[in-house]
């Protein structure tokens, strides 16, 4: 049994410790918002937060998560109202949408570590998330908007 916490909820997982975390999250726990893309950490579709780091769950073994805290796209905010989620909606970023849970999870780490990112910062932070539809310009625009929303949110608190 491996003990992990996913989106604040503790789970005892009866699975091979070598099983990719992505399999555990999708097939064992049943949270399917995180997507399988390449399976070799090349595309970013499977990004989740492991203790706040944007790890790629397709190559991260369950054993690495023992006793750790995982956040998936379903747990990023209580009401789908993380600034990145709001900005993604506002800018109508997705086309097919498959990569965007990974995109948003990476953007959330960028916005946490750098609340006012430049275009260069966005390029550096998001370079590992590939979008086959080529929505990169809208992603960049949405991250700038999310930064603005985040600042306004912080100011209103």
């Amino acid at each position, binding site marked *: 049994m491996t003990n992990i916490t996913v989106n604040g909820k503790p789970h005892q997982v009866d699975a091979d410790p070598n099983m990719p975390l992505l399999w555990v999250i999708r097939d064992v726990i049943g949270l399917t918002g995180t997507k399988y893309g390449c399976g*070799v*950490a*090349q595309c970013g579709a499977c*990004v989740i937060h492991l203790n706040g*780091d*944007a*790890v*790629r769950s397709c*190559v*991260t*073994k369950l054993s*690495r998560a023992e006793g750790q805290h995982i956040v998936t796209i379903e747990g990023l905010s209580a009401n789908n109202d993380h600034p990145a989620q709001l900005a993604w909606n506002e800018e109508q970023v997705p086309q097919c949408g498959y990569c965007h849970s990974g995109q948003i*999870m*990476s*953007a959330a*780490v*960028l916005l946490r*570590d*750098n609340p006012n990112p430049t275009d260069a*910062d966005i390029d*550096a*932070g*998001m*370079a*590992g*998330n590939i979008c086959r539809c080529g929505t990169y310009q809208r992603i960049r625009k949405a991250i700038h908007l999310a930064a603005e929303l985040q600042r306004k949110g912080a100011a209103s608190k």
Partner: protein
Amino acid sequence: MKHQNQTHTRARVSIKTLAVVGILLIMTGFMAFTFDNGGKHNNDPVSSPVAVKKDSAASVKAFKQVYMVLMSARCMNCHPSGDIPLQGDDSHLHTMSPRRGIDGKGVYAMKCSNCHQAANTPGLHTPPGNPNWHLPPAGMRMVFQGRTPHQLAKQLIDPKRNGNKDLKKLIAHADDGLVMAAWNPGEGRSLPPMSHDAFKKAWITWLTTGAYAPKGK
């Protein structure tokens, strides 16, 4: 009265003598303890002084071997001239352009350990692994790419450019976990051009014969 005074004087002398002898004994004991510890210290191979026997010809010859290894993809790929690591046997820029970051461990959502696990991920084109995967930090970039043998040799022994390593630390670095990872690179990646044992022998020979830099610029 005179006899009484003499007795007092003798008593004072003997007390003084006793005190001096006592202090000497305590000091001797303390020194013996210190030297004993020092002796043990000297038997520790890590802290023993490194014997250097200068031999410029042997040193330069050994460095040629060292240079071959350090400039191989397995070593140079993480010692790039820019802030993006290199990748593959042809040392191309790492796909996705991960950046060095201040601590050498990446930036934002692009931290090395987000993909590189504690061990190699099985399969071709998967991330190789190590618990300490990183580039040299921004403040001590330790570039190998593009360095001539002369430049690299000078850099390697300069504490201001080698991560503050003295001779002992340089020798120990041959067995560093991340250095050793070069000989366990994961599927589909070539090994350095000689065994780790042969590299270590050349490395130590170079350092203990004077760490001479080959001639040139």
